[in-house]
Each structure stands twice: as C-alpha cells, then as structure tokens.
C-alpha cells in the first residue's frame, strides 16, 4: 500500500491496514515455510543421493576386486580418468563442438520453419486449410523411421544428419505455436477491437504474447527431439562428434570412453533444457507461479 492511497480514501485506509497485517503475517509464514522447505530440501537431497552413492561405491569395489570385467563395466575411477584424458587432449571439446554445431544448425533450421509455419497457419485460416492437413498426416510418421530413406537418398553425409535433426525439431514448435495462437482468449480480442488495435498490433500486442507460453514449451520439446535426432544421426555413421567418439570406442572395446560419451549426451541435453526453462521463467514472469 502506498501512502497516497491511505490518505485519499478512509475506506481504503482500513483495507490498507488489514492488507498490511495480512501481508506481514503471510510474509512470516512464508519465511517460516521456506525455512522448513530449505531444511527439508537438504534432507531430501541427501536421501536422494544415498542410493547412487552406495551404488557407485559397490560398483567401484566390485571392479577393484576384479569381480566384473573392465571391458563390460569399467569402474567409476576408470571412467573419470578417461574423461580427464579426453578433456586435456582436447578431443572432447572438438567432438562436442562438432555435435553441438550440427544440433544447433538442424534445430535452428527446423525450429524456425516450425515457428514460422505455426505462425502462418495460426494467423491465416486459408493457409491452415491448405497445409495443416498434410502436416498433421506427416506428423504421424515417426521421424527416426525415415532415417534409412535419408541415407538412401543423401548418403551418410552431413546433409542427411542435419535434415534428420531439423525434421524432428519442426513438429513440436509448429504444433505448439499453432495451438498457442488459437487458444488466445476471445474476450481479449473484444478488448483489442474496442481499443482499435491495428491488425499488426493485434498480432504483436495480443496474439504473440498470449501464445508465448505455448511457443516456449514448443521450443523445449523441439530442442529435446533435435538432440535425440543428433544422437541417432551420429551413431548411424560419422567421422566426428560425440556419437563418433562412442562408436569408435566401441570398435576398440574402450568401454570407459563409451560411458563418457553417453554421459556427455545426457549432461548437454539437460543443460540446454535448463537454459530454456530459465528463459521461460524470465519471459513468463507475469504468470501466476505455482512454486508456493
């Protein structure tokens, strides 16, 4: 409550006081609860970490005493050592760079196409009637199933890899953008009419912001699929990249390197997802948050 409000209207002043009281007690409760939660969180994290830690210890011990073959299951220490070697030799970064470049290029091409198509189809009913049925039909084909066809047509080269990634990235963004535009509240359209929004303002000031939560969800889903496409494309045959690192190590039975490769795929995938989540939090600050 600001002061001006309290001075101007006695009725409001009362409400203001009541609100302030409620606010302070709510703030106390919140602080208390978050303290509890912090404690709880710490304990929960500890409990959650218990099982992996025990597993890791047992794994290490089994390996050290020679109970399992190092070719099948290298010890955690071996894997860490391999990771370190790959790191200082620069191999890891080189392969990671290639992989990320591919994923980025494929994602940008496919994602941008999906976004633009989704916008167009969402905004123009004619375009929807023309292209949406075909896109919906193509969508039912699992895109990884087309891989053999791509290899037949374009060979193992860079082109079919990028195409596979792009194809995967296209659909989630397309569908979410389209959905987002179509789910804009009709009541707000009436507001836009009453305020005499121009057609372009209607898009930039109403449709796009309203569709943004959907679009960001599409972005996250697209990134996930693009990453999956990358893994498949690289495992299918390549001369560079994390997938190549894995397949090459497999040939020479360097199981520790395979483990490192898998871990890298997992970590980078998770990291990009977190990045978009962070972006979501920032851009959608206006939304009710359900965190507490």
């Amino acid at each position: 409550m600001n002061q001006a409000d309290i001075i101007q209207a006695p009725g409001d002043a009362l409400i203001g006081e009541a609100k302030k009281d409620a606010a302070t007690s709510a703030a106390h409760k919140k602080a208390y609860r978050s303290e509890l939660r912090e404690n709880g969180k710490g304990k929960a994290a500890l409990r959650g970490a218990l099982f992996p830690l025990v597993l890791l210890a047992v794994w290490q011990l089994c390996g050290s005493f020679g109970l399992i073959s190092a070719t099948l299951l290298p010890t955690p220490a071996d894997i860490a050592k391999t990771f370190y070697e790959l790191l200082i030799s620069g191999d890891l970064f080189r392969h990671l760079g290639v992989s990320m470049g591919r994923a980025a290029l494929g994602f940008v091409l496919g994602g941008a196409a999906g976004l633009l198509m989704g916008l167009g189809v969402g905004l123009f009913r004619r375009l929807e009637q023309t292209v949406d049925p075909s896109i919906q039909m193509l969508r039912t084909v699992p895109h990884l199933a087309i891989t053999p066809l791509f290899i037949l047509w374009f060979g193992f080269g860079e082109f079919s890899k990028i195409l596979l990634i792009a194809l995967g990235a296209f659909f989630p963004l397309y569908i979410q953008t389209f959905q987002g535009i179509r789910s804009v509240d009709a009541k707000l359209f009436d507001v836009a009419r009453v305020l005499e929004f121009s057609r372009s303002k209607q898009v930039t000031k109403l449709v796009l912001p309203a569709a943004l939560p959907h679009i960001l969800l599409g972005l996250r889903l697209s990134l996930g699929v693009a990453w999956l496409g990358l893994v498949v494309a690289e495992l299918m045959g390549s001369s560079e990249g994390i997938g190549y690192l894995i397949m090459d190590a497999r040939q020479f039975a360097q199981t520790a390197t395979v483990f490192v490769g898998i871990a890298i795929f997992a970590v980078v995938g998770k990291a990009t997802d977190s990045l978009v989540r962070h972006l979501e939090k920032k851009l959608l600050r206006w939304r009710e948050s359900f965190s507490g």
Partner: protein
Amino acid sequence: MSEQLLNVRLPHKTFRTPQGESVTALHNIDLRVRRGEFITLIGPSGCGKSTLLKIMAGLDTEHDGEVLLEGKPVTKPGIDLGFVFQEHRLFPWLSVEKNIAADLSLRQPEVRRRVSELVELVKLQGFEKAYPRQLSGGMSQRVAIARALLRSPKVLLLDEPFGALDAFTRSHLQEVTLDIWDNNRTTMILVTHDIDEAIYLAGRVVIMDARPGTIRKTIPIDLPYPRKKASSSFQELRTIVLREFERVEELELVDSSGI
C-alpha cells in the same frame, strides 16, 4: 449540456439459439443521451442490459436498429466509445502502465504524460510496474477504466464494472467514477444491479423490463452532488425506483452482486 450525443433506436434485437429458434432480447428501445450525461441502466437479470451496451459500443451489429454517435452511424467498435467490461480484461503480460497504454508506446512523451495523469486519477501511484495478478479486483477495474479514458472516449460504457467487488471497494470506485465524470465531463452509461448505486451516480436512471427487454421508465435524479445515501430525498427516490420494480413480475433484483 442539452446537445444530443448518442441516439439509439432499436425496434428489435433477436438472438438465434443453437436449436434454431429466435429469442427476442430487446424490443422497442429508444434512448437519447445528451453530452456530459451520466446514465445508469438497471433491470432484472437477462433483460438485455449487456446486449444493449454492446450494441451501443458497436460490438454487436446484428440488429435492425440504428446507433448514432454525433449523428453518424456506429458500425464497428472504436475508441470514441470506451468500454469497461464486467471483468477487468487486462492483458496479463503487461504491467499496469503498459496495460493503460496498450497499443500506444510509453516512449512517446505525450502518452507517458497522459498515462501518469490517469494513474494518479485512478489512484494507483506506486503500482505502475505491477502485473495484473498482483492487483486486487478493484485495482484491476481502475486500470481498465484508465485504459478506456486514455483514448478520451466521447462516451464511456460500463457493464456492471463494480459487480464483483466488495462494498468498501465498490463505494470507493463510485467516488472515483464521479470524480472522473466531474473532471472530464465524459458522458457515461453504466449498467448496474444495485439500486443505490444507480441513484447515487446518475442524472437519469433508466429502468428496464425483461421478456422482452424494453425500457420501462426513465427517472431523472435531480439531487445535487455529492449525494448522501441516508438523506430523505435519496430514500424517496429509492422508493420510487423500487415501486417500479415491484411491477416487474419477476423480482430478481438483489442489492449487490447478483450476477
């Protein structure tokens, strides 16, 4: 004061139900509004108040009547006819000041200045950067009023703007509305369920009847502002209005928010 600003002539307004029948919502409406007038529309639920207001705003053009603003027919909604909806309908992704500006840019000094003036007028200083979800119902409704006022409408149409608010906030917003009317001399047409509110604000109370929706009676309120709800002259008018309502068969009227 006596210049004609808005004329509504509406022989018939029918809705088609999904079953294909047609329902008469409004019948034989003739309303002439003078510049600077404050009119309240009151009537039982379902008598067509919202429908009439939407037709005046140009939001509903499917009728055989005529709406004239300064002699020119209204064919589509626009900023000359400001509209405040029953629910505030703010853009949830915009802060208070950006909601008021809406499609206009706050970077323009003139817009900036007018927005700050309006923020002051509706008493929301300190909340310029807040998002709608951080506001109470009454504050949101004040933002919606400011948003309509920024466009300097010739007529401000308000559809039960305070219907969902508690008594405290409601009477505060009544003051705010009267202040605005007093300062800007904006012509206002306000729909309400609340007899006291209708008499407290208006220069003319228009009482509507249901099935079919028509204007039953128009009662001029000649009390000077600021009015006292407890005064005997106010109570007399209240009795007159109530008596009109008793003639309406179905008395669905409640004092406050019977939405």
